[in-house]
């Protein structure tokens, strides 16, 4: 049963992205929203953790929240998919359950 995890906190602010990665099962999807989008940037202290997790989990990031923070898509870790709100909705449909990490 695939599950979608939403993470809305920066990995530099709280440990929820780390908790999510630790507990999400192989084949699950993670969408980074709000301040969570900072977890998608490359060459940060959190990017190695995300890159390692991407072996088992699919990562997505919400485009409008990237734009709101001035994070250009060229700064994202390779392999993370940028989606808009309709893509976010589709992810909640494609996965059986949604777990919000708050």
């Amino acid at each position, binding site marked *: 049963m695939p599950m979608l995890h*939403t993470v*809305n906190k920066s990995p530099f602010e709280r440990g929820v992205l780390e908790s999510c990665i630790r507990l999400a099962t192989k084949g699950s999807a993670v969408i980074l929203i709000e301040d969570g989008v900072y977890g998608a940037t490359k060459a940060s202290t959190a990017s190695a953790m995300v890159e390692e997790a991407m072996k088992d989990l699919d990562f997505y990031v919400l485009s409008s929240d990237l734009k709101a923070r001035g994070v250009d898509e060229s700064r994202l870790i390779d392999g993370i998919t940028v989606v808009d709100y309709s893509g976010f909705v589709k992810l909640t449909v494609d996965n059986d359950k949604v777990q919000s990490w708050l």
Partner: protein
Amino acid sequence: MKFGIQINEGPYTHEASTTALNFVSAAVEAGHEVFRVFFYHDGVNNGTRYTTPPQDDRNIVEAWSELAEKHNIDLVVCVAAAQRRGIVDEGEQERNGKDGNNIAPGFRISGLGQLIEAGIQCDRLVVFGD
């Protein structure tokens, strides 16, 4: 598909209510049904019509009322959380002897059972908060 939404955060606290508004709009646009939005904890602050943001700021409360009316969405405010935070409808005004009420159009005050029901009835329950 049938969606239930839970919001745990006030309209101007951080970003959750705006994210939820955008999510609900996108879900409705994609042809899904949003059965209920349940406002819990500080999320009950989304339900007061006395909210008066500056004219150049988003009026999140009004946006919820308009979206609910347009798409027939049930906006439910948790009664226990509302009592603590002074969100009052006519029934609560009478019951608790208050001198007025402030519930916004389209919102109603009810219990936690409404959240459980949404969890049972809906295909997906998506939580937004801090």
